[in-house]
């Protein structure tokens, strides 16, 4: 429970982290919430989720591995 995190618990101060994986999805870790445009929360059961980056997943916004079938390529680091 977040309210019980002690002052010395460093994780309490850590922001939500989004990591692009090479040729794969964005992994999201931390105390995130996913909402649609209307503000409805989409229930996420797992602590770490993978958001689709190739656009072709059939369970968007989540990744279903389809990027491997279509040869999606993208680096982890910024392309700028």
């Amino acid at each position, binding site marked *: 429970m977040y309210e019980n995190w002690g002052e010395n618990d460093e994780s309490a101060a850590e922001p939500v982290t989004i990591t692009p*994986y*090479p*040729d*794969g*999805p964005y*992994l999201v870790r931390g105390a995130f919430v996913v909402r649609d445009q209307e503000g409805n929360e989409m229930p996420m*059961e*797992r*602590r*770490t*989720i*993978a958001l689709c980056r190739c656009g072709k*997943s*059939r*369970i968007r916004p*989540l*990744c*279903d*591995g*389809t990027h*491997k*079938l279509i040869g999606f390529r993208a680096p982890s680091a910024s392309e700028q």
Partner: protein
Amino acid sequence: MVGTLQAPAGRLIELPKPRGPLSERLFEALRRAPEEAPELGLDDEQHRAGEVHSSDPIADEDLQLALYVAYELHYTRVEGVDEDWEWSPALLGFRAALERRFEEAVAELVPAAGGDEAGAVSAALQRIVAEDPGPPLSRYMEKEGTRKQMLEHVVHRSAYQLKEADPHSWAIPRLSPAPKAALLEVQSDEYGGGSSARMHSVLFAQTMAGLGLDPTYGAYLDRLPGVTLAAVNLMTGFGLHRRRRGAIVGHLAAFEMTSSIPNRRYGNALRRLGYGRDVTHFYDEHVEADAVHENIAAWDLAGGLAAAEPEVAADILFGARALLALEARWAAHLMDSWERGETSLLTPLTLARA
């Protein structure tokens, strides 16, 4: 359909029927006290070596069943078997002879990693998986597999899926902090993230029950062919031996990397056959979960281990290739059996309800 199953008690299996001299000797010994083992010849190196001469260890019924039961002592109670057998030196010596023959056969099947590959393990894993077309089994099941074939598939998978994640958990204490954290991130999700109802082995039991199959751990052991047991023995062996920590990590990475898409197809197969969410949930969950896990396993776990211990990098790739090779062998057995119009199990299923 959570709650339709009774909470399972601790695991308990019965000794299966022996399939040859190795399993016969082992099971006979297991029915006695561990102190009596030396008299049973289980520690007789020469005697052992003479018997473990299978020409095809990967599909050898006797060798794989004996090895499977020897390993099961680490996972479960066995009816009528003294729990002290788990660490009996006589049993471990006997098991080592089986393991050596199996390891040799797997090594013959799997090409060694090239020197350049071992330096960039995560990219090499991506390439190995991308270059492997994978068995046609999941595509066949999605399009035209019958209900009977689907049930057989689930029964084969029960050898691992009812203890899903357990073989890879043996690796946890052997890893340095970065790969250990990555493995725990995957395993925590496999075990339900703090909820036993979401544990993958529990979801699989629900799928079995929904299909009218017996979800009891070990219920179908007598029907599972050696080639099916070999796939589980591979990961248990890699997991139990610290020396193979690279291989068990590579095995997990390749397992996760080849999971999402086939599991979507199996879910589609079950929907096509008219089954509902209580049965398909296990597969749907794996589409989503393994799309997360595969990235962690390939980059943070395998890449992290290779960075911390470069000397095991080649074994990481060996573990990945060994998984793909044994999965292909197993899938070919199913497809070949079905093409001949035969069951892929040792004895056909007798179904309680249609």
